[in-house]
């Protein structure tokens, strides 16, 4: 068995800037709670990283119901960034997360550049946190509510402010609801982002024709799930082709084949999101499936397939 195991082991480790991951399979923020929710169903020691629910300075209660609606091969959500806030996150959620062998990345969100900076600074002093992911799909209250993630200069400024106060690796999570996502990626790269993750949800809507009312109390919400995968894959390919920092692919990934498509398109790692809801085993199945694929393809490491998309004749 020992011989078999040594033959069988294919290196799955990847590097996200200064951050070493045991493998490229991560959970996506907002779809995995604070990880303890899945402790009975998923081996939390085996994943590349756990990206926890977005944290704001103060607790947020979120949007009124209904908050979610199923759509064709996907779902719309308007949760409204409900979270326990920085203080309770550190005291109530981090003790469990520290027991997980997987890397822990904390997603942060704010209403102003200052809030992002405070969050980054405070979290940098907390043991057990391996990286930060900046959610820039939030309105900048001081700039009339325009989302940080839609104006390259604002995204760059948030990135810079966070980088100035933390030694932790910084990932910037990009919104697809922009004219040019490549310009966004380049702007945050220039400001020192260690990596970008994309895509966040696509803004969508659904209507109940009987009542003629929107199906979400918030009227509009973020579309996620398999329905968005082709859009996400296209954006990941475009961004990976244009920046030199690592790209983390997100969007409708539910199977190993989905994940491998993103790796081939240039993603160094992937995040599994909505699939955690309908199949909590998705991350573990994807990990096993990547290993099997590498074997079948005769590859000796996962690194070998990243960005190995074949173009031309």
């Amino acid at each position: 068995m020992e011989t078999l195991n040594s033959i069988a082991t294919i290196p799955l480790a990847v590097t996200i800037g200064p951050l070493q991951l045991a493998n490229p399979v991560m959970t996506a923020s907002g779809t995995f709670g604070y990880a303890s929710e899945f402790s009975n169903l998923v081996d939390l020691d085996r994943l590349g990283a756990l990206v926890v629910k977005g944290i704001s300075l103060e607790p947020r209660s979120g949007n009124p119901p209904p908050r979610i609606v199923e759509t064709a091969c996907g779902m719309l959500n308007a949760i409204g960034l409900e979270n326990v806030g920085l203080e309770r996150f550190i005291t109530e959620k981090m003790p469990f997360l520290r027991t997980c062998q997987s890397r822990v990345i904390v997603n942060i969100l704010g209403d102003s550049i200052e809030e992002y900076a405070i969050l980054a600074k405070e979290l940098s002093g907390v043991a057990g946190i391996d990286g930060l992911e900046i959610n820039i799909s939030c309105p900048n209250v001081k700039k009339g509510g325009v989302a940080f993630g839609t104006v390259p200069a604002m995204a760059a400024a948030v990135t810079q402010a966070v980088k100035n106060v933390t030694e932790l690796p910084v990932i910037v999570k990009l919104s697809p609801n922009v004219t040019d996502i490549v310009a966004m990626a380049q702007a945050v790269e220039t400001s020192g982002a260690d990596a970008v993750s994309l895509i966040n949800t696509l803004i969508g809507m659904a209507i109940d024709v009987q009542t003629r009312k929107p199906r979400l109390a918030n009227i509009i919400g973020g579309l996620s799930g398999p329905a968005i995968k082709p859009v996400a894959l296209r954006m990941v390919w475009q961004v990976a082709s244009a920046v030199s920092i690592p790209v983390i692919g997100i969007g409708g990934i539910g199977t190993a084949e989905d994940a491998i498509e993103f790796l081939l398109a240039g993603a160094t790692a992937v995040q599994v999101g909505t699939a955690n809801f309908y199949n909590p085993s998705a991350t573990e199945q994807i990990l096993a499936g990547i290993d099997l694929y590498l074997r079948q393809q005769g590859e000796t490491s996962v690194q070998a397939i990243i960005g190995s998309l074949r173009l031309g004749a």
Partner: protein
Amino acid sequence: MSEYQENSVVQSNDRVTDSLYRLTLHAPRIAERAQPGQFVMAACGQSLDPLLRRPFSIHQASATGTLQLLVKVIGRGTRLLSSVRPGDIVNLIGPLGRGFSRPKESPVCLVGGGIGIAPLVFFAQRFLHQPPPSEDCVVLLGSRTGNEILQLAAEFIDLGCLVLTATDDGSHGHHGLVTDLLPPYLSQIKKVYVCGPTAMMSAVAGICHDATVPCEASLEAHMACGLGACLGCTIHGADGSYKHVCKQGPVFNAEEIAWKR
């Protein structure tokens, strides 16, 4: 509390009415730990559309590993689930959520409307003396029409409960609302347990509040995960906060809920 993801095997699928099916599944890990009022998230079909699991309260669970779900066909997901055959696999996650509290005093009253009757059968089996003296448990069942509740009413009677029914079309029992049946009994009742349409539960909660009789209600909400991660299954609490049906419920003290909004 521990939940499991389990490939259950369909043992039988019995049609109760045109749109109501009783699935008997072999799901030993979930069945062993299930408590009345808890639920499972069931995968409907094998494809990505419909994408999400559907929540079902546990209708019955036995020590021999069988779990029963009462499935009312509402949309495509429930239609797929209602068409399973013996030997098919249904992937389940459960048992989930906070169930009913075990009654400390009798008599109690169970009020069920439509598909909401499902968890009350499990309640009566697990929590009441076998059989209870009929004056110890009054069961009030409401539905659109009689054939939806005949079989379920018979099961409560077999368990020893006193059963009264109400139907919208008058085809069985009282012609009217099930809530009409509650007030005459309320003075003797120590606690009411209700599951059904929101309007009906709201009415029961109001009647109980006015009579200062404690009431527990099992709520329903759209949810993506059932695990407390998606935060989609929000309802309004009486204290102005949001509550999540999957983790804080699905069974709540009726006083915790903002019924009138």
